[in-house]
């Protein structure tokens, strides 16, 4: 019995974390022979200043995204007006568009805006902190708002309706609904913080120096992953602290017993000032979608450009689809398994923090080191990029599912365990339906991140294959903005297709 439990655990740890553990072990071994290597983990002087500066951007971006998620998410979930119903989930299609593409669109937009503003002797900065903040906020809005919406959908409707009998709506919302939805909103805050703190591409585009650039430039200078691993330690530590802090409230939340809720609280009667800021927040999402898609459509120019972009990238579309779909399935399944472990100890939190905090190229190097050496029959196949995206993003799926599962009445799980006829019956007929929103959200997030992944995919993609994202970045350097825009639209369509299939298959099937 013990063996039956231990073997799958070891398998999962080796599959997911083997390459990273190898890198960490290698970093420790090298530290014995290279004096001073450990010092890289303790930033001082310029590096310390850089690290401190680097924390401002992710802090403000994640807080902004969480606040917009809190306000706009509630409007999109509870409001039934036609305009909000249309964008309710529709804005998620922009989720896989890499932040770098958001940067292109917003750079052009701000430049145009400045042409108008200069008439009044005023202009917005086109580089530095402001642009990094704007672009990162817009890029991660779909993730933040999407998770906030899942949080609101999990709120116990009867409890809220009961409270509304005795208190005014705004107080019920602030004192009951928001605390109940807060685990998902805080999880979103944590993810956005981590994704921004580990990214150097957007800040460097606007000449804003961050610590993750230091990690990458060290890797570029030394070509030694051990240096980058040691330099990344402060980021790993920060990631761990942020994850633990953002999910700390989970244990205190009221548990839900509902299985499949289609009705939500409706006809809220909020004061006009609150309604106004809700609409303002939702308008920001609308602006994000309209400017991104509109910018891409304008840049694509005409259908001929789009046709040529699609024709050149048909194979890449298939490769991206395969990686996105299989990465989401594998990551979803492993995330589901790992979510059950998160409550059992700190070691699992540390393990899932590492792939989130390490630069993507280092994750790729770890995969090559382990798989090309010990599993050469697997190396060089399409399994490698699927594994790469799974390793990089399984933590996100794990935490989303874990967060939602904490909202489900544990008694229901226990009852299912007690009365099940077969092992899979409890899982398929009780546990998964109870967690369907969490699983669906994790699946959508995995598809979005997998399709947009670049750093580690590039290192392990089989020769002769290419993803849409790799092609987009290639055209980007050349300055082929029409092709880039056309391909980005293709990514959006791919995302719509894959997420649509996933939601229809899973949620549709569960409803039956």
């Amino acid at each position: 019995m013990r063996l039956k439990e231990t073997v799958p655990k070891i398998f999962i740890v080796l599959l997911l974390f083997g390459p990273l553990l190898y890198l960490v072990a290698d970093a420790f071994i090298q530290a014995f022979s290279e004096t001073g290597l450990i010092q890289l983990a303790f930033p001082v002087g310029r590096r310390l200043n850089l690290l401190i500066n680097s924390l401002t951007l992710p802090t403000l971006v994640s807080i902004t995204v969480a606040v917009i998620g809190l306000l706009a998410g509630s409007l999109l979930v509870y409001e039934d007006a036609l305009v909000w119903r249309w964008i309710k989930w529709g804005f998620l299609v922009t989720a896989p568009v890499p932040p770098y593409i958001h940067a292109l669109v917003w750079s052009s937009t701000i430049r145009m805006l400045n042409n108008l503003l200069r008439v009044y002797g005023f202009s917005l900065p086109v580089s530095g902190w402001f642009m990094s903040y704007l672009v990162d906020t817009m890029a991660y809005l779909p993730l933040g708002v999407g998770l906030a919406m899942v949080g609101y959908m999990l709120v116990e409707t009867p409890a809220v309706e009961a409270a509304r009998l005795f208190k005014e709506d705004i107080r019920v919302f602030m004192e009951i609904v928001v605390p109940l939805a807060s685990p998902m909103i805080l999880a979103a805050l944590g993810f956005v913080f981590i994704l921004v703190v580990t990214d150097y591409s957007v800040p460097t585009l606007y000449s804003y120096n961050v610590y993750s650039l230091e990690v990458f430039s060290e890797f570029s200078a030394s070509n030694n992953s051990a240096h980058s691993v040691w330099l990344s330690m402060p980021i790993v530590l920060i990631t761990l602290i942020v994850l633990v802090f953002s999910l700390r409230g989970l244990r205190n939340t009221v548990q839900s017993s509902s299985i499949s809720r289609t009705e939500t609280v409706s006809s809220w009667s909020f004061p006009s000032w609150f309604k106004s800021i809700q609409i303002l927040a939702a308008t920001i999402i609308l602006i994000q979608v309209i400017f991104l898609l509109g910018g891409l459509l304008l840049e694509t120019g005409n259908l001929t450009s789009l046709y040529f972009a699609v024709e050149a990238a048909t194979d890449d579309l298939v490769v991206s689809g395969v990686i996105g779909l299989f990465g989401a399935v594998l990551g979803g399944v492993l995330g589901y398994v790992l979510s059950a472990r998160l409550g059992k100890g700190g070691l699992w939190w540390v393990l899932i923090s590492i792939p989130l905090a390490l630069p993507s190229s280092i994750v790729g190097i770890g995969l090559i080191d382990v798989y090309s050496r010990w599993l050469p029959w697997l190396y060089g196949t399409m399994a490698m990029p699927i594994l790469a995206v799974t390793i990089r993003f399984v933590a996100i799926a794990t935490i989303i599912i874990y967060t939602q599962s904490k909202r489900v009445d544990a008694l229901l799980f226990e009852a299912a365990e007690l009365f099940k006829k077969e092992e899979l019956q409890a899982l398929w007929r009780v546990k998964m339906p109870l967690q369907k929103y969490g699983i669906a959200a994790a699946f959508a997030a995995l598809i979005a991140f997998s399709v947009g992944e670049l750093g580690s995919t590039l290192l392990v993609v089989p020769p002769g294959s290419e993803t849409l994202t790799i092609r987009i970045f290639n055209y980007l350097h050349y300055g082929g903005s029409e092709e880039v825009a056309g391909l980005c639209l293709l990514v959006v369509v791919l995302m719509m297709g894959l997420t649509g299939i996933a939601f229809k298959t899973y949620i549709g099937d569960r409803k039956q």
Partner: protein
Amino acid sequence: MSLKPQIKYIAAILVIIIAAGTYIALNQEKPREVVIYTSVDQIFSEPILDEFEETTGIIVKAVYDVEATKTTGLVNRLIAEKENPLADVWWNGEIAQTILLKEEDVLSPYSSPEAVGIPDAYIDPEGYWTGFGGRARVCLVNTELMDPEDLPSSIYDFLDEKYPADQIAIAYPIFGTTATHVAALYATLGPEEASNFFAALSMRDIRVVDGNGVVRDLVADGSIMFGLTDTDDSIGAIERGAPVEMVFLDQGPDEMGTLLIPNTIALVKDGPNVEEAKIFIDYLLSEETVGELVELGWFQLPLRDLEVDQEYFDANNVKGMTVNYVEIYGFIEQAKREMTEIFVR
């Protein structure tokens, strides 16, 4: 009971299918293929690879690097894969990373007969790599923002107070060809003078941007007066009709010249398709292919005596820095570390 004969038939059919499949698989000739890793922009390299495939019938499996990973992705992949390489050929858009791969024991020597006419400076003495045409570092200026008599003529003009600092840009000098350029200045001027020069640039607070492509775009759209970039990026802007002009720096008789950056091609050690790799290297080094790369806009300097049309400038009149590329490589790590100290803060 009645199913038993059917099962036998099905089993017999399965055995026949498996046996036939195995026989076909064993006797089928494996299609000839070659695996190319390249840091050359896909827009330029893909047509050449397609043409090679069409001409020779050898299937090309390519992996392209991207600027977003600062073109270090494939170099690190090659180093990590060296025990079990997937690649046969490394086609690099510059030279320093290729020398690094030689040092890391990733490459194998191969002297192509097609390399005839390429000067010795561009060929590894031990035959591990061949340089074969390339680009140059250039100052791209916006002609609407600058008068012809005010154009910069030396790298030191980047320190001249008459040009506002926020009107000048370079790419982060820790990645790509800009890093190679810095190392070349270390080799030419000496580490101290070169380092002081960049410290002064940093003190002036000129714009340091994400890549040469961004420098090009800033100059092209009139956001800045001039910036340091590569000839291929500059030509892209000229072809799109931007009001820009290329200025080759330090071209006077006593001046050091500009850095010429050859492409390099090398055979990967223990790659799975050695013969096909050699055929590809020969194909790429041929005069026809080099001519085609010039026409495509990837090369501006054939680096040997070739009859090719170069409409944007006279390649024969560009004075290059007199440098030894291996010496440049020797300064790369030091230069990158010092540039990080100076610019990433």
